[in-house]
């Protein structure tokens, strides 16, 4: 019991120091965040680290809030929300997910994509393929009005067919241009997903 208490205390000290270290390196944090905000953020950062969630994206969110002139309470809400979303992503993607995948997945969750769908995509794609860009594009097209189901299906079909990041990036650009020209978002996503050349589609053509 004493050993566990000591190691827990040590972990808390180490984790709590993440924010203090950042404060020492960047006076913005101590100058512009009041004490209650710093206390709340420390608690969130501690909890995130204990769950195995990368802390750096949370600090980036703090800096973003400061740059954009948000008050302390709004920054706390944003960081808490990001922690929750990354936690969801972490649970479904598992320990194999990279920090960047978690950050991109959190973005998709924030846009309204159920975390379980991201888990299905990860399972489908296997360990060797990073889903950072597909998750980023998924968040983007949902935020442009493509319904979640249509957007998820489009990205899933692209990933499942072996589309490369460049092709998925082109898909995102084409869908956004189509929507700006007045296309129904769902139709734009479904149509463009069909025409993206993928290794499996090209192999079928040569059969």
């Amino acid at each position, binding site marked *: 019991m004493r050993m566990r208490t000591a190691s827990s205390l040590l972990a808390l000290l180490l984790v709590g120091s993440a924010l203090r270290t950042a404060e020492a390196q*960047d006076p913005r944090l101590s100058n512009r965040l009041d004490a209650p905000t710093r206390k709340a953020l420390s608690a969130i950062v501690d909890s995130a680290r204990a769950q195995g969630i990368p802390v750096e*994206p949370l*600090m*980036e*969110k703090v*800096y*973003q*809030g*400061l*740059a*954009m*002139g*948000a008050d302390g309470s*709004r920054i706390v*809400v*944003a960081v808490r*929300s*990001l922690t929750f979303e990354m936690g969801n992503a972490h649970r479904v993607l598992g320990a194999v997910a990279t*920090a*960047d995948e978690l*950050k*991109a997945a959190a*973005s*998709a969750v*924030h*846009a309204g994509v159920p975390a379980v769908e991201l888990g299905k995509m990860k399972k489908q794609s296997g360990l060797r393929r*990073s889903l*950072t*860009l597909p998750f*980023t*594009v998924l*968040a*983007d097209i*949902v*935020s*442009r009005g493509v319904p979640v189901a249509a957007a998820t299906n489009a990205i899933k079909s692209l990933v499942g067919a072996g589309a490369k*990041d*460049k092709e998925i*990036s082109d898909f*995102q*650009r084409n869908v956004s241009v189509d929507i700006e020209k007045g296309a129904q978002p769902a139709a734009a996503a479904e149509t463009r997903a069909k025409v993206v050349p993928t290794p499996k589609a090209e192999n079928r053509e040569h059969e």
Partner: protein
Amino acid sequence: MPDWGRTTLELMVQELQHPVRLDESFDRRVMVRVRRIYAERRHRGIIGWLGAAASISRRPAWAAALAAGVVAVVSLAVVKRTTNTVAATGQAIPVQFVLVAPDARSVAVVGDFNNWGLNDTALVAENHHGVWSVSAPVHTGVHRYAFLVNGKQWVADPTAPRAADDDFGQPSSALVVEASTQ
């Protein structure tokens, strides 16, 4: 008992009909988008004309020079989109950011890659006839960022995926820089 139904609804409508005023920065934000569309259409118009001119067997020298200039401008937007496949993990790669903002007095790029530092002089864009650009070293990973116009207006990169977070009421974009898989 008073007839809450009719009277309250009338009061409700009266309240809802109060005008809602937006400040003038709204107009500026709309016009930034509109002018960008206008500039894009003008570029496409030039490229389309050049495409037609190329089909003519004898091409004047000035058409070739104009083509070179236009390709350079188009390339600014294309380069921004390309997922960099050269860097190894953890290395910083120069990434070019471009914003068409003819009416801006200053444009800076701010994001996760520089801890949203507003005073980082390395990310102040240079103006070339209303096309603002800057190259910045960015480590592999996924980054949120935005342009800061005239020191106060946040603008998402129109050529990049949107960052879905709207936590602070300002737009931002997503940049993915990945290590080579070769």
